[in-house]
């Protein structure tokens, strides 16, 4: 069972997202995370989908995705060198010793505090999934109020490009 990051260019039309999501539930493929937003071309959306499966299953997932009429193109980023990023927002208790401790951890992880109250910090951090997990681990002694993760975004390294024309 290998983890794969599949980038999907699809028509920016109502229902396109549910076609993809429906395909995964109907065929019992698993989705770890899924993000989607319009691209620079407003008629297209780009989806980043993290899934896992045997080679046979991943092959079927690719083929079934390509078969959807709204899907313009797909690329398995994990086939080649690529960059992964995820954004996480965390609201923590920031009172007493924790107030300084959290600040130190934020610096070490190159995160940022983006909102402050007398009792809380809200922190922004980006990185790959492992970095975000490590940050959470480092915060284990701190009271966490809320965690929001964006799900993974990915892009190929070098000149490899996923575009509707290429």
């Amino acid at each position, binding site marked *: 069972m290998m983890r794969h990051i599949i980038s999907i260019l*699809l*028509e920016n039309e*109502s*229902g396109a997202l*549910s*076609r993809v999501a*429906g395909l995964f539930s*109907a065929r019992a493929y698993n989705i770890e995370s899924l993000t989607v937003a319009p691209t620079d071309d407003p008629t297209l959306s780009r989806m980043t989908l993290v899934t896992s499966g045997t080679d*046979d299953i991943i*092959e*079927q997932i690719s*083929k*079934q995705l*390509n*078969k959807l*009429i*709204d*899907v*313009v193109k797909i690329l398995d980023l994990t086939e080649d060198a690529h960059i992964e990023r995820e954004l996480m927002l965390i609201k923590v208790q920031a009172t007493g010793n924790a107030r300084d401790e959290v600040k130190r951890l934020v610096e070490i992880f190159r995160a940022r505090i983006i909102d402050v109250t007398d009792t809380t910090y809200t922190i922004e951090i980006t990185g790959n999934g492992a970095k975000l997990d490590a940050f959470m681990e480092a915060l284990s002694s701190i009271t966490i109020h809320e965690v929001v993760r964006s799900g993974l975004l990915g892009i190929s390294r070098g000149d490899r490009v996923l575009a*509707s024309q290429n």
Partner: protein
Amino acid sequence: MELTGAEIIIECLKAEDVEHVFGYPGGAVLHIYDAFFKQDDVKHILVRHEQGATHAADGYARSTGKPGVVLVTSGPGATNAVTGIATAYMDSIPMIVITGQVPKPLIGNDAFQEVDSVGITRPVVKHNFLIEDVKDVARVFKQAFFVATTGRPGPVVIDIPKDVTAHKTEFSYPEEMIMRSYSPTVKGHPGQVKRAIDYILSAERPMIYTGGGVILGNGSEQLRKFTRKLGYPITQTLMGLGAFPATDKQSLGMLGMHGTYEANMSMHHCDVLIAIGARFDDRVTGNLEKFCPDATIIHVDVDPASISKNVRVDVPIVGEVVQVLNEFNEALENTDRVPNASAIEKWWAQINEWRSQDCLKYDRESEIIKPQFVLEKMYEVTNGGAIVTSDVGQHQMFAAQYYGFDEPRRWINSGGLGTMGFGLPAAMGAQLAHPDDLVMCVTGESSIQMCIQELATCTQYGLPLKIINLNNGYMGMVRQWQEFFYDKRYSNSHMDVQPDFKMLAEAYGHVGIKVEKPVDVEPALREAIAQKDRLVFLDFITSQEENVYPMIPAGAGLNEMILV
């Protein structure tokens, strides 16, 4: 001139040469029905239930190759159509289903007769659309027909809110359709074709295995040329029957769960398997781990997702069957290499030994009517020339086994979804498309009752179907499995109450004949066929506990058949 959305729908149907639309009116489609009323170009066939509309359109499509068209209202109209849409989807049948929708401002408000038709049908369509602007109607129809009929065909649903059918705009039908997200592969990859030909000509125990794709892709002629040129054995799936003539000596009949012994044994022992337009369905392969253990597998299919889905193949070729078979045939003509004659001769000797098992034998002297006997007589009396539809169950298997199909698009049944109730409305669609042909519906007393209401549609449009009801009092296939695997505990597979089918047929204005003795089978069939202008319902009282043989039990390989 500006037209309403409803009028534009009619214009689109005309532009697509649609002759018949199968439908049922309701609130959300009243504007469309009004537009139908005002013209004579597209004929509307009023069914008695929306399921019947979809199956009729399906039968029309399967017997002609043209897309079937359905028109139903919102809410229950759409949900009733879903079974027929799913049936078409599983067998890759081109179909356009227009579903009315509540007016746009009401969508999402739980309005009267509102359902999310696009959401409900999404998993069982090739694609679907919700039209939100009258300006999109023509483009969406063009796209819908394009998508439904190209690549691997399938049903497309167009959901159209009532207010959109009343809005007006200029009509112009797009001449061609190019979609950046959809362009099916047509030609086979030359390198793969070359590899395939190499394997094909090196084979010592070759086997050709073809499916519904050859029929859908109109590749019958090319398949015949290919198969005869090579002299190799061929087997066809339930969906593929007729692409290659059943009466040809190279044909080993159907394969799979109720296929012939010779077909399944040849599959199991072959060294090169040439699969064309078939999808390695579980009813065909049996236990995947035991499937074709020695074979190099070549697979031709228009749908890349069908390739290596269930069985890993060695030579995948994505393309239309006609194109790829033409490429095969050209390659075979332009090479000096020929098949390995001595090996092939030995292979045929082995196959003929399997064939001599005569796996379809049954008690022809029985005093009770055997269903197989009815099918054999039906074949004899019609010279194999009828268009035959079927429902689902034992009678379907008997028809596939005993009525030899020599031509494509003459055998119409629900293979993938296995929809009981399919046979009668499908026969209506086939008869409308082929008014001069003999159309027969092979069914059982359980299946026929799932869409029996369509007998009234047949009366209304004068459809002279011949209904062959194999009446054994049981849901035969359910009973057979209960006999084999549940120690004869016949849980709910027997209907203690049946209608008098003769009287029922007569009540709808048809001819009903009850047949109880083997000696009366042939005369009854002849009489039914002689009544050219009437629907004749033949109710054959058959032996109750007949089983379909041979059979591959669940979990077994193709070489582990149960013979009689």
